[in-house]
């Protein structure tokens, strides 16, 4: 056997250290361009072009033949241009989203009903062709869509022209430190909350083909199956889990298997495989079956309401089908790279969509790590099929771990086992359900009989999820931030995709592991401060969290949303607060405490003595009425009124204002307020101001995400926190 020249190399085996894949590099360049534009704006465009020019000059420095030089030059240019195209696409899409005018406050809205979605308690109505009528009599037409949440089950026909009066809020491209990727992708610029009876239909319309198909399928399932099973089947088929029981759905989330309700790769792969099998059996040619399968898949994505995960899976599936039909050499890394590029071309904001990142990470993880893990397992004499399925499940979990932790704050500790057991079962049940539901749609008179088998299969599949509470198996309380990059580099170094010799590989892995451990400690443990507290905010509430020797203290705004508190507790890994303060009127404090107690225990609730908080014999939490300074969060605090607290944080005066403030205020070093207020700021003359809500040119949780505030040696410092 002929040896490669490169075999003599100390570091790697074979010809080169990694196989050069132009498509992978182009995909990374496009994604990099988008990310650079997010951080740097249009400077990214010039940087990309400059880097392309610099890379093109490289061959001149290391001459190795003219042809090679031309190749490198052309590819460097292509990379630079791809990167620049990514930046430009991102800049234009966000500019287009922000071009719709900002509308705030009470207005009358008229629009055409385009989508109806359901959650446990609310119905979401998405309207296009929107016109706002302001109280001043001005009519403002906007290209942005509005999503109105109606309490109760509003039954409105798709395509109808409707009107309602509501308090409208505009979404910015970034709020609370996160890119609102799904809103930008859906073109939803506004939101409003209304009651069921508030909506008036101006003109009946006809829903589109997809809407009608969706309604027909739902009607058929609910008529012929038990309600819970019908809701489950509908969620599996269309990704609309709104009809399911909220607690059951939450248990699926805690178990790390809720991804089965996002119509994504699994569903499209099964449908595609079934159709391809059928077409090949019928001996159809590629030029016939490719458009037929594409049409069916597009129709299916349409029935799913063109949800982002469905569009993504559709694009990936179409790209892979075309590559296979076109006879391009099948390489799994290239396929994922092409699909990644294609989805980002459809909309560059997908780069910030959690679902997209999870899909890509899982697919790439299986390709890069699945093989080596399966080989490792078969060495300990596991049957090949078991080793292979374990390899797939473990590699997908490893690759998605940092994304799950950073985006949701937790991941399921039992998710791996559940995914190994549950996903193949559900995939099989889904395949049967899809085929029989399709038949039932064609032969509605036989639907009752046809749907019996999938109903039984689904009931068997979800039994373990209904029987066990998975909330106690969660991993969380830390964040990866930029350390995620080290995690992925480590995965890559461990994989078979890099041709390192054993010793250099061991050294690289050890160094990367050490860097990861040090990075994670620095990112998550506040080092170099005497004491630290954290500000967290969302559309559902605002909170200040302080960890001290005596426990964890919480100061929250009134009536925080249950989802907000749950996310806060899971993300921070807290199930017990030593002291709690709600800066709100007494009746709101009374309503807020039970919401908090659903997610964490509390020892003491402090309330202002003047607040007239009702006494009750049935409280599980000790309530203390305070009129002077009391111990809080390792310092001392005093209520200035129901909504304002002064807190001496180790010598630094912190004024926390969540609403109306009293006229006379103490001087403070740091002002933490719900919203910007010039009078408040002038009255307490702070050295630093931090706001939960939007504040132009000031530090805010709204623009930067959660903030960490520390003190040391007479200095208060505020910085953005990892996650």
């Amino acid at each position, binding site marked *: 056997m002929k040896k490669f020249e490169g075999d003599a190399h100390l570091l790697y085996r074979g010809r080169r250290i990694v196989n050069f894949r132009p498509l992978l590099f*182009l995909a990374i360049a496009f994604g990099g361009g988008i990310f650079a*534009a*997010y*951080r*740097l*704006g*249009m*400077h*990214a465009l010039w940087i990309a072009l400059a880097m392309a020019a610099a890379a093109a000059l490289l061959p001149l420095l290391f001459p190795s033949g003219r042809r090679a030089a031309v190749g490198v030059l052309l590819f460097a240019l*292509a990379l630079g*241009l*791809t990167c620049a*195209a990514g930046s*430009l*696409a991102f*800049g*234009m*899409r*966000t*500019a*287009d989203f*922000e*071009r719709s005018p900002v509308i705030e406050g009470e207005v009358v809205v008229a629009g055409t009903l385009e989508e109806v979605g359901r959650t446990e308690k609310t119905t979401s109505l998405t309207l296009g062709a929107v016109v706002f009528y302001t109280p001043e009599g001005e009519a403002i037409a906007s290209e942005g869509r509005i999503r109105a949440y109606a309490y109760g089950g509003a039954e409105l026909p798709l395509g109808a022209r409707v009107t309602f009066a509501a308090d409208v809020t505009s979404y910015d491209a*970034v709020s609370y430190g996160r*890119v609102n990727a799904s809103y930008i992708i859906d073109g939803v610029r506004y939101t409003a909350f209304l009651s069921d009876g508030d909506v008036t239909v101006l003109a009946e319309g006809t829903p589109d083909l997809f809407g009608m198909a969706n309604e027909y399928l739902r009607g058929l399932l609910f008529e012929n199956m038990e309600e819970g099973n019908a809701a489950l089947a509908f969620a599996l088929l269309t990704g609309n889990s709104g009809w399911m029981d909220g607690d059951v759905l939450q248990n699926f989330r805690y178990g790390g298997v809720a991804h089965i309700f996002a119509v994504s790769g699994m569903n499209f792969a099964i449908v595609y495989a079934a159709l391809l099998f059928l077409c090949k059996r019928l001996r159809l040619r590629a030029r016939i079956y490719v458009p037929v399968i594409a049409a069916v898949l597009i129709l299916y994505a349409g029935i799913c309401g063109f949800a982002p995960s469905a569009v993504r899976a559709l694009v990936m599936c179409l790209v892979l089908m075309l590559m296979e039909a076109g006879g391009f050499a099948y390489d799994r890394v290239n396929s994922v790279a092409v699909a990644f*590029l294609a989805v*980002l*071309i*459809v909309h560059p904001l997908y780069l910030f969509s959690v679902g997209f990142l999870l899909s890509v990470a899982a697919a790439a993880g299986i390709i890069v790590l699945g093989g080596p893990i399966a080989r490792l397992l078969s060495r300990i004499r596991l049957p090949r099929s078991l080793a292979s399925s374990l390899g797939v499940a473990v590699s997908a979990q490893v690759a998605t771990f940092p994304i799950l932790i950073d985006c949701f704050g937790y991941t399921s500790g039992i998710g791996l086992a559940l995914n190994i057991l549950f996903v193949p079962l559900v995939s099989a049940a889904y395949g049967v359900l899809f085929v029989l539901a399709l038949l039932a749609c064609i032969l509605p008179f036989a639907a009752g009989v046809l749907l019996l088998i999938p109903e039984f299969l689904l009931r068997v599949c979800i039994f373990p999820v209904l029987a066990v509470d998975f909330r106690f198996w969660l991993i969380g309380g830390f964040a990866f931030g930029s350390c995620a990059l080290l995690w992925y580099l480590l995965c890559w170094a461990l994989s078979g995709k890099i041709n390192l010799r054993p010793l250099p590989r061991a050294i690289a892995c050890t160094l990367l592991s050490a860097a990861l451990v040090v990075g994670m400690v620095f990112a998550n443990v506040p080092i170099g401060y005497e004491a630290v507290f954290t500000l967290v905010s969302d559309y559902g509430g605002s909170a200040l969290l302080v960890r001290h020797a005596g426990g964890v203290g919480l100061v929250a705004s009134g009536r925080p949303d249950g989802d907000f508190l749950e996310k806060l507790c899971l993300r921070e890994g807290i199930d017990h607060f030593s002291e709690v303060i709600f800066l709100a009127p007494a009746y709101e404090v009374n309503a807020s405490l039970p919401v908090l107690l659903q997610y964490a225990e509390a020892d003491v609730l402090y309330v202002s003595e003047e607040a007239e908080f009702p006494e009750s014999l049935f409280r599980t939490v000790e309530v203390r009425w305070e009129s*002077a*300074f009391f111990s809080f969060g390792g310092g*001392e605090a*005093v209520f200035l009124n129901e909504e304002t607290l*002064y807190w*001496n944080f*180790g*010598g*630094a*005066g912190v004024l926390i204002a969540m609403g109306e403030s009293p006229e*006379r*205020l*103490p*001087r403070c*070093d*740091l002002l933490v307020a719900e919203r910007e207020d010039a009078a408040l700021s002038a009255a307490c003359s702070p*050295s*630093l101001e931090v706001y939960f809500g939007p504040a132009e040119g000031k*530090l805010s949780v709204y*623009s*930067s*995400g959660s*903030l960490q505030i520390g*003190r040391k040696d*007479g*200095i*208060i*410092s*505020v*910085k*953005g926190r990892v996650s």
Partner: protein
Amino acid sequence: MRAGLVKFIAGAAALILAGGAALLPVLVPPRTDGLAVPAGQTAPFDGTLYVSVQGEGVAFPGSYAVPYGTTYGELFALAGFAGESPYPPEAPVRMGQDAVLGRDGIWRVYIVV
């Protein structure tokens, strides 16, 4: 050679198409600044506690500006009080019930021994 040329043309066409698809739907001037807003700011604080010590047996009654964390023992030594202290000497001075907010917006702790 010819196959290579065909592949190159096909690749270039795909790239141009992709670029066009990425930019065409919204022909608006791009956003020039980034969306990410980095956070980071520091400010000094003096950490001073204003305490007024009065009472019999206090050699130097009056107001004292002491650093946060000063103990009652240190404060009474400063004020020249040698009698029996009603507060534990090793405990840091607390604002407690005795702090009063002045018109100038500063909290002052009044201790009478």
